[in-house]
């Protein structure tokens, strides 16, 4: 490094430290959001420039002269050396989902500081490292998947735990995402009609790209995006039409049933008809909207009005119950470290890399960008008046169903808000009410709408709001479709071991049966979530967070084992420290969700409280009718949590055993790294 570069990086470090210090130590009325952006960009730049370089050179010893699977196994399709920027784009589009938008929005109930710190530190030292190391492991193993690597490196037990973990996380994830969409659409004809319109638009584009103009992706997508924008405007007309609006006005449980029916249809229809065109549209909308949000925040530099920390760090928060530790980590999930990414890092990406050296920029860099999306979501949630933020996100079961009662409760917490303010805001956004829209999508949409309308002309607030809702729903539904399909393949694969006929992925009876089973799995949790008086998110999001962080722990177990087996025991801390931290937070969170006496935290406490009340006959009739379902659901959630806890520990103990054996020269599964072959590609 020359003196000029040293000076420049010192300046970045000083600027980053200054911005981070400003965020952490600021105790005024409000703080400008530009400090979040500056701190984040500087910290990611330093992580990418220095820490990832250390991991690449010392820990993994990336070798540009080693032929990658894309070169050795080049078949022109799955395995294909591809331009590094294109691989970066595909990898980022694959890992960036709704998680980093929802998690920070929910975690904002603790204030802006705890969530932001964990997003930054967790990504640079945990999430980016996980994605990078798993990508490297898969690159050195012919592009094998996480499940296969877990089986190869840790033994059959590891493989089985990874497989079941992926299934479980998929089911919970889809349910909670479905719930977020339902909460955005309930009794909102505008949102519901716009989201409904995305289905025929996707089908139309599917037909266009298959039959009219085969493979013309840009044309098809441009047409689709234009239609989507039109559908947002048309939703406004429908909302004002006295008859038509009635066709799109539903409550939560009704919408849940519709999404379940839709999910089943999407899973059994051919991919070209719905899933593939919807994915093209959602990818473009996602990248376009994220870029627009970044530009708007930089132009506008809105003030963050949420306090650095709220009183809810004591565990009494209205959106989800639980203390700062461990629940801020479980709630942020994807923006800091996401186990799900390891499936992409060991999926399509390693089969496209032409040069091993690019694993650093793609694995580490794409996650840094994803984490940046989470920082922007945190900004969008905290620029709202805290009173408005809590009014939108608090479930009726916590603050009361009537508007007057809700604003009184929230104002008493020290976040002043009035009924008039909420009514005016709802009218501006073209909604009848914004109360109790728990889940993150509506409050994020309000934040985005006010940022967009101020940055790009102060009109059309309602259109921006519904554009933001449509954008979130579009890629939530894409994740829902794609996830259902993947879970179906995995279920078919598992059942195929017992009944070979069910393992044939194109045999229609098996497709129908396995799709129905998967949809029934997440559909159950989704439906219960809509009738849960505590809002559903309260129980489902922590469960999702625990499952996701558990999958990250599995990925880090595999990574640590590979590093130890390669003779780098002294560098094993690079993955072992994040692993240890994840085990601590998932265990603590799982323990609390199981055994906490607090009704909104402990599943078992809630179940026994409800059954006592039911037995004593103190519940009103409609609550009494739902109680048995809710009690059963609490117990089921408890069983799932216990299962996550036990499997994580089984895998960690297995990892310690294998690593100890490898370090002391005892018998253990040998490393499955493919032998060195020199690259023939000119580039290297």
């Amino acid at each position: 490094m020359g003196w000029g570069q040293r000076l420049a990086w010192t300046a970045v470090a000083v600027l980053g430290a200054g911005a981070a210090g400003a965020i952490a130590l600021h105790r005024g009325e409000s703080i400008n959001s530009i400090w979040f952006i500056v701190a984040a960009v500087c910290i990611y730049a330093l992580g990418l420039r220095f820490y990832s370089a250390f991991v690449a050179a010392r820990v993994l010893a990336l070798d540009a002269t080693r032929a990658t699977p894309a070169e050795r196994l080049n078949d022109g399709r799955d395995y294909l050396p591809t331009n590094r920027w294109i691989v970066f784009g595909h990898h980022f589009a694959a890992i960036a989902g709704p998680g980093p938008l929802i998690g920070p929005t929910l975690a904002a109930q603790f204030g802006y500081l705890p969530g932001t710190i964990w997003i930054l530190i967790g990504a640079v030292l945990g999430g980016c490292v996980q994605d990078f190391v798993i990508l490297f492991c898969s690159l050195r193993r012919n592009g094998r998947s996480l499940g296969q690597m877990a089986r190869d490196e840790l033994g059959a037990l590891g493989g089985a735990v990874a497989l079941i973990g992926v299934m479980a996380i998929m089911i919970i994830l889809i349910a909670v995402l479905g719930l977020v969409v339902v909460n955005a659409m309930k009794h909102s004809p505008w949102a519901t009609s716009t989201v409904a319109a995305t289905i025929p638009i996707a089908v139309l584009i599917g037909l266009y790209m298959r039959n009219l103009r085969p493979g013309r992706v840009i044309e098809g997508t441009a047409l689709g995006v234009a239609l989507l924008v039109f559908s947002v405007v048309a939703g406004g007309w429908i909302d004002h039409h006295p008859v038509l609006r009635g066709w799109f006005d539903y409550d939560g449980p009704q919408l849940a049933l519709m999404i379940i029916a839709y999910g089943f249809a999407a899973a059994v229809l051919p991919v070209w008809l719905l899933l593939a065109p919807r994915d093209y549209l959602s990818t473009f909308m996602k990248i376009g909207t994220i870029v627009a949000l970044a530009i708007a925040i930089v132009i506008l530099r809105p003030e963050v009005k949420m306090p650095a920390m709220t009183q809810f760090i004591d565990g009494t928060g209205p959106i989800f119950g639980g203390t700062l530790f461990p629940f801020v980590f479980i709630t942020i999930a994807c923006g800091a470290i996401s186990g799900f990414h390891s499936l992409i890092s060991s999926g399509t990406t390693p089969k496209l890399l032409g040069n091993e050296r690019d694993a650093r920029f793609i694995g580490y860099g794409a996650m840094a960008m994803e984490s940046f999306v989470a920082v922007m979501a945190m900004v969008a949630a905290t620029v709202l008046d805290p009173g408005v933020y809590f009014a939108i996100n608090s479930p009726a079961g916590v603050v009361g169903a009537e508007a007057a009662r809700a604003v009184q409760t929230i104002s008493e917490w020290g976040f002043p808000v009035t009924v008039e303010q909420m009514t005016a805001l709802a009218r501006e956004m073209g909604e009848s009410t914004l109360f109790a829209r728990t889940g993150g999508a509506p409050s994020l949409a309000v934040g985005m709408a006010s940022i967009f309308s101020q940055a790009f002309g102060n009109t059309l607030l309602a259109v921006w709001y519904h554009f933001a809702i449509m954008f979130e729903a579009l890629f939530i539904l894409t994740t829902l479709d794609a996830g259902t399909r993947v879970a179906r393949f995995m279920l078919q694969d598992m059942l195929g071991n017992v009944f070979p006929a069910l393992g044939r992925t194109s045999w229609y009876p098996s497709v129908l049966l396995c799709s129905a089973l998967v949809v029934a799995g997440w559909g159950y949790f989704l439906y219960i979530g809509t009738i849960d008086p505590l809002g559903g998110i309260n129980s489902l999001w922590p469960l999702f967070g625990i499952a996701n962080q558990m999958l990250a722990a599995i990925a880090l177990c595999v990574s640590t084992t590979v590093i130890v087996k390669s003779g780098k025991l002294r560098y094993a801390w690079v993955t072992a420290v994040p692993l240890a931290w994840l085990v601590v937070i998932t265990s603590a969170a799982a323990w609390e969700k199981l055994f906490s006496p607090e009704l909104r935290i402990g599943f078992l406490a809630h179940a026994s409280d409800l059954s006592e009340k039911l037995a004593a006959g103190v519940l009103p009739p409609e609550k009494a009718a739902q109680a048995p379902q809710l009690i059963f659901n609490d117990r089921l959630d408890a069983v799932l949590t216990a299962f996550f806890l036990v499997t994580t520990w089984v895998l960690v103990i297995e990892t310690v055993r294998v690593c100890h054996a490898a370090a002391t020269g005892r018998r253990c599964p040998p490393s499955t790294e493919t032998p060195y072959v020199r690259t023939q590609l000119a580039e290297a």
Partner: protein
Amino acid sequence: MGMKTPWSRVRELWRRFGRGPGPAGRLRTAASAAWRALRAATGDDGYERYLAHHRLRHGGDVPMSRAEFFRAEQRRKWDGIRRCC
């Protein structure tokens, strides 16, 4: 057809635009590069890339048609985990 639609006029203009050195030529080069990058990033040029690969590796056989190729690609792409949370 020979009809002068607005679109064909735009294409005609672009065909003649920026041939030779100077700022217009540089703009043309930059715009073409951006367009190529967009096509590559979106997979719009997938069929052309397939044909190139096909010529190189399997010179003798008949390649798939554009429509066949696109169908095969979509089937292949969705046989695994493609999207995340």
